[in-house]
């Protein structure tokens, strides 16, 4: 899951240009094995939804006898590379599932078809996600799965600390107070990440910056603003959990997975993560009394989170785009989206289905309208690296928050030229 998150930050284009060139000939010969018949839709579906995908394909074929759906199952490891190679080689399937963040690059490279004529009830879709997959005022994908972080906490720890587990913190001050109260008997109150793959820390810290009105770049991406008072205050809030001893001592070594392990072991009382962590926690330690809450925001301000998830695209090189579009409309009825997604569906009406009624999912659902996306800039990965280095300098005690962010700001500004 963490791989998945991190890669939504990574522009893959140029890396693929290289491997693409070398692998092109090999791939072409491989791809030619797949014979395509008229009326056949080749669908690249990820392995985690394989069973449900088969069911949907069968249903569709019964209703549309002229069209055959041919599934090819993909795995998340190395998927961006595989998708881009297929798109570049011109030997692509008719329908693919990709992360929202990858779509823009495909649109700019002229590898996929615009889908404005295919999407139905556009107003029903999550607005933040539609924005990511829009380029030059056209829609280049149809999103079906969306997710953000929330906060996962241990209800028993709350009770032991004299806090009401049914009334989790809503504001920064309350979260800080709770973290303080929870930190005792060798436990850490609130875990932050400061190590591992940097995407872990971007996903957890940048939303705090956004909530407080700060950002990494200004709106037209001409100026770095990570040393603005609003940004600095948010980063101070984030890093203080470690500085004040409420986050584990190993924070600088910890990624999201490490936090989950500490949580399962009962050494950590609360941390930010996605809803997919909940079943994983309960599988390892079914006795844990897990609660979930929205990510607290500064008093009087709105919360925020980075939105992630998956979309369908139709490659420009698709052999049967008309049939693929028809199948796409079938896949994106509210009912089928609700059935197929692992986390939440991109359509508001689909999220009303009973399977999303689980109270433990409610805070995650409420986070969705506050979901935002990272800006689309070719040097984004380098910028976040400078930002991440800055956070590590603060955690190491090398620099004050202001000084560290001044340096990060200068480093990022140099990339904007």
């Amino acid at each position: 899951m963490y791989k998945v998150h991190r890669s939504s930050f990574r522009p893959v284009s140029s890396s693929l240009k290289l491997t693409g060139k070398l692998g092109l000939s090999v791939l072409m010969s491989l791809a030619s094995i797949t014979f395509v018949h008229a009326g056949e839709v080749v669908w690249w579906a990820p392995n985690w939804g394989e069973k449900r995908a088969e069911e949907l394909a069968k249903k569709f074929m019964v209703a549309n006898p002229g069209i055959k759906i041919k599934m090819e199952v993909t795995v998340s490891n190395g998927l961006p590379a595989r998708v881009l190679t297929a798109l570049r080689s011109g030997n692509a399937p008719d329908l693919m599932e990709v992360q929202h963040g990858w779509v823009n690059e495909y649109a700019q490279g002229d590898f996929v078809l615009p889908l404005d004529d295919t999407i139905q009830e556009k107003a029903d879709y999550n607005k933040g996600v539609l924005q990511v997959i829009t380029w030059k005022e056209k829609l280049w994908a149809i999103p079906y799965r969306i997710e953000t972080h929330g906060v996962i906490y241990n209800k028993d720890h709350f009770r032991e600390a004299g806090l009401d587990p049914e009334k989790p913190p809503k504001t920064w001050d309350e979260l800080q107070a709770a973290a303080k109260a929870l930190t005792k008997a060798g436990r850490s109150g609130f875990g932050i990440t400061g190590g591992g793959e940097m995407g872990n820390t971007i996903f957890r810290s940048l939303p705090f910056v956004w909530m407080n009105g700060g950002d990494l770049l200004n709106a037209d991406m001409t100026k770095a603003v990570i040393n603005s008072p609003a940004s600095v205050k948010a980063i101070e809030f984030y890093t203080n959990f470690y500085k004040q001893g409420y986050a584990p001592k190993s924070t600088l070594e910890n990624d999201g997975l490490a936090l989950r392990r500490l949580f399962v072991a009962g050494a950590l009382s609360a941390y930010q993560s996605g809803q997919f962590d909940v079943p994983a926690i309960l599988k390892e330690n079914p006795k844990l009394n897990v609660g979930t809450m929205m990510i607290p925001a500064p008093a009087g301000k709105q919360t925020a989170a980075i939105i992630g998830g998956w979309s369908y695209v139709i490659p420009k090189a698709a052999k049967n785009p008309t049939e693929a579009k028809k199948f796409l409309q079938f896949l994106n009825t509210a009912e089928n989206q609700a059935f197929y997604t692992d986390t939440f569906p991109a359509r508001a009406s689909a999220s009303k289905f009973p399977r999303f009624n689980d109270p433990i999912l409610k805070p995650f659902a409420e986070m969705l309208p506050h979901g935002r996306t990272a800006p689309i800039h070719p040097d984004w990965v380098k910028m976040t690296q400078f930002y991440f280095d800055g956070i590590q300098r603060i955690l190491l005690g090398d620099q004050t928050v202001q000084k560290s962010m001044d340096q990060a700001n200068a480093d990022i500004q140099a990339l904007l030229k």
Partner: protein
Amino acid sequence: MPALIVLMMLIAYPVTYTGILSVTNQQEEFVGLQNFRDVLRPRVTTQALWNTLWWVFGSIFFQVIFGVAAAILLNQKFRGRAVVRSIALIPWVVPGIVAATTWAWMFHTEFGIINYMLTGAGVLEEPIGWLITGNTVLPAMIAINVWKLFPFVAIMVLAGLQSIPQELFEAAKVDGASYWEEVRHIMLPQIRPVVTAVTLLLVIWALNAITIIYAITSGGPANKTLITPIQIFRLAFESSAFNQSAALAVMFFGIVMLIVFIYIKSLATESSEKS
């Protein structure tokens, strides 16, 4: 001849391609030295170079000292010598990635055995964040690298020691030399060529070593363990800045060639002085 062509393709093509990449942009247009300027500007590049120098010299200094000491000890006659010799080789035989992961867990602040033993024995009051404290993380990396490669030095030097003619020791005994005098005046001068050759190998390996650091810290925290080879890797495969990465690689190649050249040159003058 066909072998030569294959060799050319395997060596010349990547080298040339890196060279071309370093002076072009993503659109494959010629941009002169722009990539070099871009990659030299951020302060992280200088920091990485300093880290590299610390890493290389720190590693080699201790590898050679421990290696030679171990070789001299293993050259003694004692019971179970063969077993000890084999055990001493283990660090060198263990795959780098396995060693790195194991050490990462041993050094871990909360679950690590090193902190557990030190706090348990009362040496430390509080666990130390070995890998997350600015001034312990690079020394920790160097320590792992020393542990990994000193057996190699030991084995090479041991071979050198065993080729010393027995008459030298006998003559020394006749002259009434002590054991330490034997070490100083016979063993060390005799193994000098071996040590110089091994050091060159160690320099080249340390300059290219990426496994240990990348697997444990990936250059962090806050670039405290970022060495230039890792920066090259990061630029190319994490930031997709292939052209800047190539520019840095070309410069690094230059520096490495310079070091090797100086080393070989001094080696040559040394041996000509002797003869």
